């Protein structure tokens, strides 16, 4: 067994620091992941991330499976928001194989993505509530998230893992009445938003707890490869949906809200504002969705050979840029798939820098507002 040397901080006095383990079995961490903190008093002196507890060897397993078999595997890479994996992977495969998918299917994909985004945002509110002790927030928001999961179940047959996307489109068409139900749900969610505002965003103590915590200036955010809402909360107007539009996002009318303070509160508020935009997008999709085929035919999976080449396909997920770097050598199986999770740089690298000098109270708040999702870097 390899003995790791103890990370004693710059004080070089073993009596002055002590070790505190945040995770894997700790209520303060999201998922099976661990930070080993060297503490000095109530403050963090040094951080050692310990990933790999969720390592499954996805990238290896995908090389062993057929192009379409992999669809069952990849949603499991990011559990709170599995659909981005499917869409990113399918987009990559379609690009390499030169398949153009019908508009109808593109709209369905946007609907699925945005619903997943709302679900993930609601989940992140729950995380903030749990880490600050506001347990009403998780109870409400996860309860509301479940309505979305119900709709997913109706649409795809699965609550969490949908395995609904397919190279060339989606697996089946939207059922009758589903869109009406979706609109109804959006109305409901919108009516719930003021309550969340009162509970979370206008809560003076929560503001006190989150304002100024984990301040992330814009240059540092760029330098450390931080993407998504966290980047926008630092004031950078960057959203792949706008800047490099995929699917039908260029046909939809929505804003990219920017909060810009760069602290934990801004990051949560950013998600709250984007949630509203997602509702807007979903309404438009439900109203504009054209009729047409939901997929194009692709060959028998055993014969489905993707031409040789490589492509990096990316999707704006609720946590940031989710990318698949797919390499094909013209076989029925991928030659190599690399998964770029948005939490990788935050959770494994930037944590080292930001957590030093942070109070122990702020550590879980920081983890949850950064929305660190361990499965996407453990893979």
């Amino acid at each position, binding site marked *: 067994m390899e003995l790791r040397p103890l990370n004693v901080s710059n004080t070089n006095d073993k009596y002055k620091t002590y070790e505190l383990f945040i995770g*894997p*079995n700790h209520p303060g961490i999201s998922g099976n992941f661990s930070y080993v903190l060297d503490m000095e008093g109530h403050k963090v002196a040094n951080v050692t991330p310990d990933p790999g*507890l969720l*390592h499954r060897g996805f990238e290896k397993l995908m090389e062993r499976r057929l192009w379409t078999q992999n669809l069952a595997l990849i949603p*499991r890479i990011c559990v709170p928001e599995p659909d981005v994996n499917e869409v990113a992977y399918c987009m990559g495969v379609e690009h390499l194989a030169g398949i153009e998918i019908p508009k109808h299917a593109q709209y369905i994909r946007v609907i699925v993505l945005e619903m997943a985004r709302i679900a993930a945002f609601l*989940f992140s509110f*729950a995380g903030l509530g749990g880490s600050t002790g506001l347990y009403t927030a998780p*109870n409400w928001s996860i309860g509301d998230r479940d309505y979305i999961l119900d709709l997913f179940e109706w649409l795809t047959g699965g609550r969490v*893992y949908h395995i609904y996307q397919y190279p060339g489109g989606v697996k089946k068409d939207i059922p009758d009445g589903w869109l009406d139900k979706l609109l109804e749900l959006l109305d409901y969610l919108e009516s719930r938003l003021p309550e969340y505002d009162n509970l979370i965003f206008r809560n003076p103590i929560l503001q006190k707890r989150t304002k100024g915590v984990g301040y992330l200036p814009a240059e540092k955010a760029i330098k450390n490869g931080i993407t998504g809402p966290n980047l926008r909360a630092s004031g950078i107007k960057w959203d792949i949906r706008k800047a490099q539009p995929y699917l039908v996002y260029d046909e939809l009318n929505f804003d990219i809200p920017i909060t810009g303070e760069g602290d934990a509160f801004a990051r949560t508020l950013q998600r709250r504002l984007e949630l509203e935009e997602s509702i807007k997008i979903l309404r438009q999709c439900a109203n504009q969705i054209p009729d047409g085929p939901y997929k194009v035919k692709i060959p028998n999976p055993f014969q489905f050979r993707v031409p040789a080449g490589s492509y990096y396909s990316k999707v704006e997920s609720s946590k940031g840029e989710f990318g698949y770097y797919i390499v094909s050598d013209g076989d029925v199986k991928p030659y190599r798939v690399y998964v770029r999770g948005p939490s990788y740089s935050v959770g494994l690298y930037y944590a080292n820098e930001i957590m030093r000098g942070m109070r122990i109270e702020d550590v879980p708040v920081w983890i949850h507002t950064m929305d660190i999702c361990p*499965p996407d870097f453990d893979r």
Partner: protein
Amino acid sequence: MSEWKELADYFRGRSMWMLHYCTGCGAIELPPTMTSRWDMERFGVVPMATPRQADILLITGYLSIKSLKRVVYTYEQMSAPKWVLGFGSCTINGGIYWDSYSVIKRLDKYIPVDLYIAGCMPRPEAILDSFVKLRELIKKGEAKGYEKYVKNFEWYKANQDKVFRRTTPVLKKPEEVTKSA
């Protein structure tokens, strides 16, 4: 004395404190189970922060070797009576990761599992159902995994050590392995 035991078992079945150890992706179905939609607190099941306080260890899905080591340590830190719920097909046979180099295949080779919940992933209803089933098992006195662990400690330890304490590479000759694949 047996009346006392029965009474104690009755209370144990009504108040099962669960260790919320997100070992795998199944953990995503636990928040809905805990919160307002399904509310497992109705059954006296409450998430606990540390293994010391917990009665149930819920293994929510696949376990990498690195995770398993920590789970075994955690399991040994819990005090008897304690129960393990294997959650999802990954704990039964490795599930979708059947050929992964990092994920263990059968949980009950390493720690005793009292109840498996099938599915990938099981719905919250299934989790709640497992709690009710476990309650019945406790009442009948059939859920004795912790005693099994003590009795067959060497067997479990040997299995664990095989995975944790390797001193030689598993694949000794990479060339041969490549040919056979």
